[in-house]
């Protein structure tokens, strides 16, 4: 369940992951989504290693077919993550964008 308090607490962590470069360690295109992500499917989820060695899992956005490969350089950005649900608070989080 999406608690407004939990969203507020977690958003403090986002800043430390923003505006970083890294590379894709693995990726998958999700065709069968969980509840709250139906409108986005199919979407790409990737594991990336950032330049500071932090490893994260996040969606890849603004990709083209040639970006879907292990080793692809990516950049962390702030995006809306899922449906707001009945609380109406729009949850934001980290996503990855391919670097040229």
């Amino acid at each position, binding site marked *: 369940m999406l608690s407004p308090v939990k969203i507020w607490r977690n958003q403090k962590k986002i800043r430390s992951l923003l505006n970083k470069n890294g590379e894709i*360690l693995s990726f998958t295109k999700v065709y*069968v989504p969980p509840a709250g992500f139906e409108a986005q499917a199919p979407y790409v989820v990737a594991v*990336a290693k950032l330049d500071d060695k932090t*490893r994260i899992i996040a*969606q890849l956005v603004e990709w083209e077919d040639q970006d879907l490969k292990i080793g692809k350089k990516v950049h962390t950005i702030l995006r809306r993550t899922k449906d707001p649900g009945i609380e109406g608070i729009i949850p934001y989080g980290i996503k990855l964008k391919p670097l040229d």
Partner: protein
Amino acid sequence: MNVSILAGATTKFGELWSASPRRMVREVVDLVRAQSGLSLAKIDGIFVGNMLSSSLGNQDHLGAFFAEELGLNVPAVKVEAACASVGMAVHLAFLSVLSGRYKNVLVIGIEKMTDFKPETVNNALMGAGSDPEREAGATFPALYALIARAHMEKYGTREMEMAQVSVKNHYHASLNSHAQFTRLITLEDVLKSPLVASPLKILDCSPLTDGAAALILSSANDKKGVSFVASAVATDTLGLSQRQDLTSLKAARLASRQAYTQAKVTPNDIDVAEVHDCFTIAEIIAMEDLGFFKKGEAAAAIFAKKTWLGSGRPVVNTSGGLKAAGHPVGATGVKQVVEIFNQLTAKAGKKQVKNARIGLTHNVGGSGATCVIHILKRN
């Protein structure tokens, strides 16, 4: 102290819309009671393995729930460790008998999954993952797809080799009257089935299943029976992305090494194994983590039928595994032990492995954050 198995049974696995959890548990407990000849009054404690009763079924306090159903007033508790819930329940039941405090213990595994929409179940299952995984919209097929892609990149593992795991497990399930899917499938069926999370297709994935299973563990010395020679558990990071290596489960490596030491056996001594093939790639990695094959060599070995009934050792997933026998998450770990128990007592029917003496179970929670290993031996 010797901890032995007096009896083990499962319901039929599948879409059991007409059966309630109470009825399913009553059915398996009646079976183990009849098999063991032990009166329920001799049971000292109940360990219930279950993952989703809270998030899907709106029922907590599952220990008392089933104690009531069985008319008992003994200690009863639900154990939760995602898909390894009931493997963990067996571990704790084992320790309780080993301590000398309890003589006879009942372990119940139960899950009811098909009453709900798949999206709802997918969401509830992701309770076993981490916050960032949920935020990314990852599902369990997606997490194992990430593992599969990394394994393919590092070892050249092919989709056709993954598909062979499903073909084998459907073959084994065709010999199991309690399996969810008893039809044979081909490599082409798997490869042409719809994508769930690339590169995993629907026939690479274990299904949603209703099912229950039960075991009675005892300190009674049964000279012709089956005893535990190892019970080991290890844990790892909840989230997949925190791990240094995506192509192996550290918890499985740690728990199996401990188990082999406890049992004083090596992987070569294992005649039959039930492993956690929630996805086809998971069985390939399990073969490597358990030491049956070298890293990167399991996919080819499975493809060459080295773990198939009648053509190699160890024979893996004679029940049909999670893929084809079905995966009621809270019941899978005990179903694995029941299958090995039947193999070691020569009661496995058409899927019997000849002269099976030592068997292993490998039950994984989440994407590898918990792993429970048991090794059983015919006395």
